[in-house]
């Protein structure tokens, strides 16, 4: 859908921003309540009817505190790079197509997203290295090392999808799943993409960067309170991006009977997010060298196998 006038542009920008904020807030509440139920306890119950206003209270409290910059930190980098990270992830959501003529449709959408996504470990490393603290430096190094092992299977499994459809346009990929979603056609590809996406989003079992019981909070040890609120926002927006990618590329996007397209998309996104939350409540953290071994020796051959199968069975 091309943008034909300035009003349409402004409408698109605001609508997708509202969608992002809605998903972040609802996912924040859902995660806290679902994890609490799996751990046999109540989650937030006091503010709002089921604790719905708790996240709002937390963000308001964090935004009103003083911003402290440690003496050893590099002031310029430390203050600006987290904002760049937030801008990057919000921009990436804008590159995805939405149903009902929301969103932009670019012919190289898939490539653009994954190229820009690989900037994020670099920005996180800059923040961690600029805070002048040994713990932040270690966790920033771990983040870069981890992305080295998991970028390649991620892109290879997406390449199989693009090979089947014959284009990089995400709207075309969604429309070509009209009869069978890709999760049935290439299950190995879905498995590889799901695990590599978990590593990219840095959720458990791959949450080395914010290892709560080892490095206390990793790169976020020394950031001030407003930046901590912003880091939470970045985390949830990244979850939104990841779940959107999984549901658009493998689960059929907004296609489905009886309900409007946007509702189907949101249902699929929430189901994927719920599965990720259950995995968080179940596994322990992996060690770094085992993680690298898992990425190079298991995921990479599976991704290559997936491409070969797709080529032989469907393209020829």
């Amino acid at each position, binding site marked *: 859908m091309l943008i034909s006038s300035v009003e349409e542009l402004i409408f698109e920008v605001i609508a997708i921003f509202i969608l992002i904020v809605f998903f972040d807030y609802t996912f924040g509440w859902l995660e806290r309540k679902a994890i609490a139920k799996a751990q*046999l306890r109540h989650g937030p119950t006091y503010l709002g009817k089921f604790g719905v206003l708790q996240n709002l209270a937390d963000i308001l409290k964090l935004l009103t505190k003083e911003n402290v910059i440690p003496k050893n930190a590099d002031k310029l980098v430390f203050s600006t790079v987290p904002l760049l990270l937030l801008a990057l992830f919000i921009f990436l959501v804008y590159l995805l197509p939405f149903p009902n003529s929301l969103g932009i449709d670019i012919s190289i959408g898939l490539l653009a997203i994954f190229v820009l996504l690989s900037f994020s470990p670099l920005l996180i490393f800059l923040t961690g290295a600029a805070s002048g603290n040994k713990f932040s430096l270690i966790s920033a190094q771990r983040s870069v090392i981890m992305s080295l092992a998991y970028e390649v299977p991620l892109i290879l499994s997406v390449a199989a999808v693009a090979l089947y459809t014959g284009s990089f346009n995400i709207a075309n990929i969604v429309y070509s799943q009209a009869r069978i979603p890709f999760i049935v056609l290439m299950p190995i590809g879905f498995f590889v993409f799901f695990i590599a996406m978990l590593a990219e989003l840095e959720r458990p079992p791959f949450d080395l960067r914010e290892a709560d019981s080892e490095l206390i909070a990793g790169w976020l040890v020394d950031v001030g309170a407003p930046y901590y609120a912003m880091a939470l926002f970045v985390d949830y927006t990244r979850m939104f991006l990841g779940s959107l990618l999984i549901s658009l590329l493998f689960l059929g996007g907004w296609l489905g009977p009886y309900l409007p397209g946007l509702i189907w998309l949101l249902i699929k996104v929430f189901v994927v997010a719920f599965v990720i939350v*259950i995995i968080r409540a179940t596994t322990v953290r992996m060690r770094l060298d085992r993680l690298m071994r898992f990425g190079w020796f298991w995921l990479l051959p599976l991704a290559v196998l997936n491409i070969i199968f797709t080529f032989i069975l469907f393209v020829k």
Partner: protein
Amino acid sequence: MLKPIIETIKALGKERFTTTFPEEKERQPDNYRGLHRLDVETCISCGACERICPNRTITMVDANTSKGRRKLPQIDIERCLFCGLCEEVCPTRALTLTKNYEYTEFDRRHFIRRPEELR
């Protein structure tokens, strides 16, 4: 890897185990060791509770009772271990431990409870 996930999903269906204090409270048995209660008429001022306390929590102070001016125990709740030795050693069972466990004050000096307040 599948079995642990099934365990977690089973736990989603179980009942919650935490209680929302102060709206719901846990049950207590009858021999719970909470705050002290002194029966002023039965106390014979022997001072056994002062001598047995490991932490020197109890001191005998002058107090006015219906039988004249006598010495009665004064308890510093901050130092108390709630071990129950003073209740066991009291010969007339004037000092007992009740089920009350909620004692919060704004001022630290209010933790030294005189004998008249122990009820």
